[in-house]
Structures are given as C-alpha cells and as structure tokens.
C-alpha cells in the first residue's frame, strides 16, 4: 500500500479536528476535536511504523501510549468541564469567557 494514503488522511483529520477545536461553542465538543487531532497523530505513527518495519515497533507502542494519554486527557478534561458547568451553569465557551 502506498504510504501517502494514511498520511493524507491524517492531515485531513488533523485539519477537521483543528476546525472543531476553534469553532465549536460547546466545551465537550472542543474536547472531541482534540481527540480527532490525537487520532490523526496515531494514524501517522502507525503508518510510519509499518513503513519502517521497525524492530522495536516504536510507532505502534507509541500509539498505545498516545491512546492512554488521550483517555487520561479526556477524563480530566470532562471533569474540568463538569466543574465549570456546576460553577456557571453553562459549557458555552463564549458565555464563560464573557
């Protein structure tokens, strides 16, 4: 398989995730955009691992680490969003910033 397909897909996913982080008003959906960007990175790591045929499986092990960190990030992020909701009764980032 050509290496370009996963790389171009990951670029597209990263751009869409960046748009989501910057454009969504709901704080939970901003976190979803971050997850999408992390997934684009995972795709890159796996693609380069498979291309390099790495003896240590560096890319795939690092992908597992990224998935774990993403799970930790979304857990902590959603806890912060819930605390924010309890404090100001909204998760709208425009309203909160005002």
């Amino acid at each position, binding site marked *: 398989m050509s290496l370009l397909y996963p790389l171009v897909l990951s670029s597209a996913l990263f*751009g*869409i995730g960046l748009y989501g982080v910057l454009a969504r008003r709901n704080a939970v959906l901003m976190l979803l955009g971050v997850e999408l960007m992390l997934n684009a990175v995972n795709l890159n790591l796996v693609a380069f*691992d498979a291309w390099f045929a790495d003896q240590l499986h560096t890319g795939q092990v690092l992908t597992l680490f990224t998935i774990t960190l993403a799970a930790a990030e979304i857990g*902590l992020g959603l806890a912060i969003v819930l605390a924010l909701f309890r404090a100001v009764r909204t998760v709208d980032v425009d309203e909160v910033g005002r």
Partner: protein
Amino acid sequence: MNLTELVFVVLAVVASGSALLAMTSHQLVHSALWLVVTLGAVAGCFVLMTAEFVAWVQVLVYVGSVVVLVIFALMLTRQTGGTTAEVTGNRWTAAVLGVVAAVGLGATMIAGFHGQRIEGRRIGTAGSIGDALFNDWVLPFEILSGVLLAALVGAIVISRSGDDH
C-alpha cells in the same frame, strides 16, 4: 490500485466525512455518534496497515469508553433553553486555519514521501507488540501508568461536589 488500497480509500472517505459531520452537526449527541464512525473507520485503517493489536485497543478504549464518557458529559451538561447556535462567531477563521493546516501538512507529506510503499513485513500482533512493550519499553510503560493514575485521581478530586470541606 490493489484491493487493500481500494478498501483504505473507502475507509478514509468514511472517516473524513463522518469527522466533518461530527464537527459541524448541530445535534450534540449526533456529533458524538459520528465520532464513533470516524474512530471505527480509523481502526479499520490500522488493520489495513498491519497494526491489528492497536486497532483493537482503539475500538476498546476510544469507541468503548471515551465516547461513552463524552455522551455522559453531554447529557450531564445539557442546557435548558438558551443559545441555539453551536459554532462561535469566528467559525470562518477556524475553517480557514483548518484548511491551511490540512493542506500544508498534506503537501509536506506528499512532497516528502511520494512513491514510498508500506510492505507489511512486520505485523503488529498482540504477541509482537507485547514483546516490544515489556522488553524495550517497560520504563515508559510504568511512567505512563503513574500518569494515568494521577489523571484519574485528579479527575475524581475535581469532579467531587466540593461542599464537604
């Protein structure tokens, strides 16, 4: 274009289309469910790139728990009435920046790696990944478990109601 590439292109179209729908949908729960489609398609791409263990971890962790957590959070923070617009006023700036990032990264990748091919010589089975993880990557693995523990304890502390002290 062989069969693997054809399947990959189909999965890539599904993944980017549902990602776009997830980031533009006005129904919040629909966004989370479109994200499930995206993550599933990316897991299929992992399988096609011979990373089958990573694909199953993706299905278990992302589709199984992260999206459930997000749907819980969406339902707990449901707003009664109020605003209807789901995007901020600077959505066009965001769209331009997203397109610039995607095109810039894609052009860099195409310029740097055109003509390279994935041969699939070393398949990422659970056995080989486990060998690599517990022979060569043990220290990062242990540090990561500490990070995960700290993050989860922090999440519990932050989300406690706070009226007991």
